């Protein structure tokens, strides 16, 4: 498989029609490309998150990451926009959903699209991923250690869910993960949770001390299998 790509910041219509920036990485070759919406972590639309977007393009996905902090400091560095969003009280869930819908629409409208779109998010983006999976039309969702997920939303889950967590994390704690799994199970939802021993929050972050090689390696393996099954039909 060719692994060439084009990666760049584009402008998309987000919540309420607002123009926001988004980072798009798309394979140069091949048709029937599935899409992946990437929801960044609390530190924002940063270099490490853009690397994740490009990683999906290497594997044949068109990946798009809306900058959820764009409105708070248009044109500013990711670090300043993240601080501005926090100072303003954080990103409202409704606004996040609108931005995610904008990204989904862009991915599905691509001529090379196969019509399937998944969503993945890390940290705060993990929680937002669960919200997207409960509210919007997506085909698969991956929650990477999202804290503060509301288990009462479980009956609304609209697609298969993969969850990747660290046993040493405090938010979400193993008890939080168990409560969510119980709620999903009782609602008859399709989900697959993996909790890694020796790992805490942000174990995928290669540029942070929280990085855990074994957890991250297996986590990526789970992601490729899950998205491959639900988005590529592999």
């Amino acid at each position, binding site marked *: 498989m060719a692994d060439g790509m084009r990666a760049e910041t584009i402008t998309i219509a987000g919540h309420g029609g607002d123009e926001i920036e988004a980072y798009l990485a798309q394979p140069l070759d091949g048709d029937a490309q599935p899409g992946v919406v990437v929801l960044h972590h609390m530190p924002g639309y940063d270099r490490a998150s853009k690397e994740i977007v490009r990683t999906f393009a290497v594997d044949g996905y068109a990946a798009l990451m809306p900058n959820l902090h764009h409105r708070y400091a248009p044109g500013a560095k990711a670090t300043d926009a993240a601080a501005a969003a926090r100072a303003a009280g954080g990103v409202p869930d409704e606004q996040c959903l609108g931005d995610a819908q904008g990204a989904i629409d862009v991915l599905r409208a691509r001529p090379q699209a196969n019509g399937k779109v998944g969503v993945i998010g890390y940290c705060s983006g993990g929680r937002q991923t669960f919200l997207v999976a409960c509210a919007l039309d997506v085909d698969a969702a991956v929650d990477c250690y999202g804290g*503060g997920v509301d288990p009462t939303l479980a009956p609304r889950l609209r697609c298969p869910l993969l969850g990747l967590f660290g046993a040493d994390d405090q938010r979400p704690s193993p008890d939080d993960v168990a409560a969510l799994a119980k709620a999903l199970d009782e609602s008859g939802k399709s989900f697959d949770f993996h909790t890694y021993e020796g790992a805490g929050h942000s174990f995928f972050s290669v540029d942070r001390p929280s990085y855990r090689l074994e957890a991250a390696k297996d986590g990526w393996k789970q992601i490729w299998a899950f998205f491959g099954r639900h988005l590529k039909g592999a």
Partner: protein
Amino acid sequence: MCTHVTASARVAGSGYRGDDWFPVDRAVVYFDHPQDAPLDHALCVDVWGGSERVAIELDGASARRLAETILATLESSAPEDPGRRR
């Protein structure tokens, strides 16, 4: 852990951005993932004036030392400060 917990305080004074000073009016404080410090979590302070800010990210022990040092300095050197502890 991703705390989302954010506290803020009104402040008055000036901040320095490397090439000039600017007036500041609000400090935002949180213990969460830092942008740059090589830590899982950091005590972060953003002191804002309009859209400009002065930012620091410190490990928890450093932040406590700084906070204690600030309070001790105010207690000993600024007796006329209206915010002084009684």
